[in-house]
């Protein structure tokens, strides 16, 4: 008596289901790459034609990247920034996720702490820099603290909101089946909020990455943020400044893609279609 209209299928990827000219995978890759190269070319042309010295050309930036690699700084600075972001972010995840879930579940706790969180959250992490330096000095701890502050609140807020928006029907089913507290948490609360929280983590990581760059500009002497500030101060090397920006963009993208990978795991998606 099975239903003939449903196949136990994997979602069909758009490239196969939509049969239109010009939407093959080759084409979808080609368009952004071609656009990018075209803009790069325009940039190069603009610099050459205007003979400007306030904007490096793509070629100069590229040479700057090579120089950084040869001096061993490229890897060193990327690793330094990643190190700080990882520690600050992971600390925020490990502490913030459970705290967020708890706040979402226990309404008294939520009522108690939510106003405080709403007040602290909009304070830009940059505003915490002076206090961070005061408390932790010029060391890795200051940026790590800043990254923690930047990531902690979004994670807590997302987790709490996710718990509070669990459709009550699921809690009723859990009560009906006699789920214990542990089972309720493991099988329902944690799993029901997982997708939302992971998305929140991805966004928080994006913020964290921006913060680390800002933090490094002020508080330490290594890392990509420091690279940008130092390149300018120590010799007006704007080619290295832009090279640093490129690196920041690329690493930030890589981090985002990594979290998207996690978001798209079948256990997290649970049958929801992937965004195109």
């Amino acid at each position: 008596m099975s239903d003939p209209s449903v196949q136990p299928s994997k979602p069909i990827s758009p490239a196969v289901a939509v049969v239109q000219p010009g939407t093959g995978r080759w084409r979808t890759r080609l368009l952004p790459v071609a656009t990018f190269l075209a803009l790069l070319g325009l940039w190069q042309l603009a610099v050459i034609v205007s003979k400007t010295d306030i904007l490096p050309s793509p070629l100069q930036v590229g040479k700057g990247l090579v120089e950084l690699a040869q001096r061993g700084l490229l890897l060193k600075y990327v690793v330094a920034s990643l190190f700080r972001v990882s520690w600050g972010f992971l600390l925020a995840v490990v502490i913030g996720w459970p705290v967020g879930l708890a706040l979402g579940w226990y309404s008294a706790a939520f009522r108690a702490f939510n106003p405080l969180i709403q007040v602290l959250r909009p304070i830009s992490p940059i505003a915490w820099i002076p206090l961070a330096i005061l408390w932790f000095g010029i060391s890795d701890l200051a940026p790590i603290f800043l990254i923690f502050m930047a990531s902690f609140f979004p994670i807590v807020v997302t987790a709490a909101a996710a718990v509070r928006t669990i459709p009550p029907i699921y809690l009723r089913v859990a009560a009906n089946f006699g789920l214990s507290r542990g089972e309720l948490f493991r099988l329902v609360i944690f799993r029901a909020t997982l997708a939302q929280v992971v998305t929140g983590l991805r966004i928080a990581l994006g913020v964290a990455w921006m913060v680390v760059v800002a933090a490094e500009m002020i508080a330490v002497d290594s890392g990509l943020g420091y690279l940008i500030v130092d390149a300018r101060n120590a010799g007006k090397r704007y080619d290295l400044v832009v090279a640093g920006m490129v690196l920041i963009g690329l690493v930030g993208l890589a981090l985002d893609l990594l979290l998207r990978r996690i978001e798209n795991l079948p256990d997290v998606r649970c049958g929801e279609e992937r965004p195109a």
Partner: protein
Amino acid sequence: MRYFSVNDSAGMTVLRDISFDVTQGEFVCIVGPSGGGKSTLLNLLGGFLSPSEGEILVNRKPVRGPSAERLFIFQDSSLFPWLTVAENISLGARHRTPIEREAIVEDYLRRMGLSGFARAYPRELSGGMRQRVELARALAAGPEVLYMDEPFGALDFITRMNMRNEIVRVWQVEKKTIFFVTHDLEEAVQIADRIIVMGSRTQGIQADIRVTLPRPRDVDSPDYLATRDRLYRMMGISLKVGQPVE
């Protein structure tokens, strides 16, 4: 022999002076107009609400709250979307040994025509299939009573007819006591042993009809039509559709 009695009025007096007995294995439909307290009654019987007066007994023991012995099935699927079909079904069997659990899940997958969908997620299934998974999940827990609140209301006509067959078949095999709330009188006559007709708010039970038609119910038979017409008249529904305006 199992039976229970209900005497109840609640809150803004949603229900007043309700009382009836049900024997084990009966298929009871509760019909009535919207807002008449059908769902409230169901929740009371299942233990999700307490009566302000009187008591509800199952097997002569009072009902004190929700329990896996009294499982509900709703209209909009309440399957956990983050669990696969198999994982949902195994919810009721989670206290068994892994081997037993797997056997139970396999069994119900097969019986409800869900073989091959064990690892699908509810999102990937049609409405009818989801209701079947819900049934499987409830049955796998081995409850004493099933409480179904307009479970087929969101399904298309054909699927609904199929599901009626399904629920009667399941009931004949599993021999559970079933309380089935529906606003569809035809549905009630097609599947129930007994139809409790509720009036609107606080009017209480208008009628308690035993349906003795043999199964499978023949929708064309005069006896079926007579029973159905009786219900229609009781609810004040005309048998002529499209009466011209006076």
